[in-house]
């Protein structure tokens, strides 16, 4: 159903993945949608389902397996806090807890004002900056609890 009823137009993304590619095209298409919209709205998934002829249940299975896919809208600034080994032994856990408590996340990953979303990632591959996080495409390295507060405050102002 719902190529018509879906409010979100993803036809230009569908063009990159011809229907006959089916399942092989699924991950790439989901990645492109998420990159453009920031998350995967159900309407778009219904379109994907009929375009690639894959049951919605299979698509849901794939989305829920991979940590990068999100079914809910994300915040304006995406914080990727690295929790790789180097960051861990250089005190990343304390920084992470500080981010959570400062932003009042309390189990959620997006702030109520949708200014921030927090993602815990396993290694950004910049271990020389440990502990490190990214906000958008910008790296912030050698973090301490005090430093991370200041950085977040700057984004709020």
């Amino acid at each position, binding site marked *: 159903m719902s190529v018509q009823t879906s409010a979100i137009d993803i036809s230009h993304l569908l063009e990159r993945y011809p229907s006959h590619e*089916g*399942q*092989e*095209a*699924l*991950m*790439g298409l*989901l*990645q492109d949608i998420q990159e453009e919209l920031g998350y995967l709205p159900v309407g778009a998934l219904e379109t994907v389902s009929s375009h690639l002829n*894959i049951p919605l249940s*299979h698509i849901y*299975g*794939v989305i829920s*397996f*991979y*940590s*990068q*896919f999100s079914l809910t809208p994300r915040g304006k600034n995406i914080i990727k806090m690295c*929790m*790789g*080994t*180097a960051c*861990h*032994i*250089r*005190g990343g856990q*304390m920084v992470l*807890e*500080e981010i959570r*408590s*400062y932003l009042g996340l309390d189990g959620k990953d997006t702030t109520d004002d949708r200014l921030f979303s927090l993602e815990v*990632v*396993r*290694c*950004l*591959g*910049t*271990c*020389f*900056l*440990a502990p*490190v996080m990214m906000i958008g495409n910008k*790296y912030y*390295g050698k973090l*301490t*609890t*005090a*430093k991370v*507060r200041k950085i977040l405050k700057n984004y709020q102002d």
Partner: protein
Amino acid sequence: MHEDLQRINDTKDLQDLRERLKRERDKDKVRIRICMTGCRAHGAEEVMKAFEEEVEKRKLGVEIVATGCHGFCAQAPVLVVDPYGIFYGSVSPDDVPEIISETVEKGKPVERLLYTDPASGKTIRNARDVPFYKNQKKIVLRNCGEIDPTSILQYIERDGYAALAKALNEMDPEAVIGEIASSGLRGRGGAGFPTGRKWSFARAASGDPKYMVCNADEGDPGAFMDRAVLEGDPHTAIEGMTIAAYAIGASEGYVYVRAEYPIAVEHLKKALQDAQALGLLGENILGSGFSFRIKIKKGSGAFVCGEETALIASLEGRRGMPRPRPPFPVQSGVWGKPTCINNVETLANVAPIILNGGKWYSGIGTEKSKGTKVFALAGKVNNTGLVEVPMGITLKEVVFAVGGGIPDQRAFKAVLTGGPSGGCIPEDLLDLPVDYESLAKVGAIMGSGGMIVADDRTCMVDLSRFFMDFIQDESCGKCVPCRIGTKRMLEILIDVCNGRGTVEDLQVLEDLAYSIKDSALCGLGQTAPNPVLTTLKYFKDEYLAHIEQGTCPAKVCKALIQYRIIPDKCTGCGACLKVCPTAAITGEKKEVHDIAQEKCIKCGMCYSTCRFEAIEVV
């Protein structure tokens, strides 16, 4: 970089092109090579921009090259000024005018930006004399930091695609496999399976088409070797893949790469387009009649997808869950067809082996582990970065000679290889040679190349808990030993970290570890207990300190530590009081402050804020 690329029809065309490129290279021209991959995180883009503006302003004939990783990440952003070979670290845009006036225009070094050898206190002018580089041997990383990774012509100039031309023209597929087998090359993804043997199985398997897959799903936290190769020299992976495809008879290829590596994906895409445009990939490569196509597939954040059967499931657009083997992927892989999967670093070794011969390669390394290994050195070590060392070098040499030892005069405690699948190796085993067998003998593994150094402030129980937490997160949930067994192990580790563990728990932990090793479905589960087993073996006293004395010797485990103010050092400045999120700190201005332990959540804010070292952890 935009280059005018015309299709190369045969080997002679390629050779002519290479000779012309070499001839046209002005060896005296000043060339500034700036790392534009990892160093971007430290402001390399701003430095590059400053160079471009200054060169433009002064109308200088200088070539500025945005390269891949130079390896010495601790000194980021780094650059080298050729033809002098002068190495500069921690460069800021403000340093650029001076570098131009002194080095570019006069050929003189800017003393303050040179690397200072901590041992002698003297500055070192040339990159090759810096101890960090001196003990390395570069085969895989031969072009990283030397060329612009977005320029296929610079790759060709440095003998790129010569190995492919040689294989297609002068060797039949069996001869290619024979050369790789005689080199002794083993899989660099971690398990160390002989590459030549894998290729001969794939060649012998029946099925059409066959697939050649490059595994670039580098998920091991603390490892960034494959990222560096794909970012800094993507063509070497493509050339290795194409040679492999020719050897096994594959016509289709995939690179399965982590989506967390946007620069690697970007450079790889460009490299594939350019190789295609030149006829080094695609139909009838170099007029040989051999055709091979490569597609990029991005992973989506699942560690288990590094396991080859899980990777195949993910390539096919399914949940990335492993399946029992046999059948092995070489018999039944992508879409049920024979599939050969090699890691990026393995493939980066292929072209040099074909060019120089298996005998040359087998002359490097130890009896059973040939060639070099790239390690991502990180953690509590001075020279964090990417290093390529010959197999057989001792861990001590890697950590101290190349890595420059431990920062802040702290004591070395352990080195971890193989990430969450590996082990913690203590100080008395530091003379161990780096090779597959020696590392396995002490309970660790070679792994893909993450090497993390721990000092006396790293708690080994907490570290084991960290890895088990990681495994729990990343376990796909298909088999019971991994899904539930590692959960039980994690619970025990959490208890020990919180001071609630018992000595009996340690026996349960060990029993669980061996059961999981024996019964888990895939490599992720089978190796998951390694960090626990090695820490139990080499650092049992730390477990016992948590259990029996209720203390964390490294002062890491929160439940067992307290933050206290040292009255003699406290100036009463109020800085800690202001940042404390729970108002646990009290005290008048200019008077000694106090921390109310019942309110303290041990966030460490006061500790990292205090400028007088007046807060201690006990």
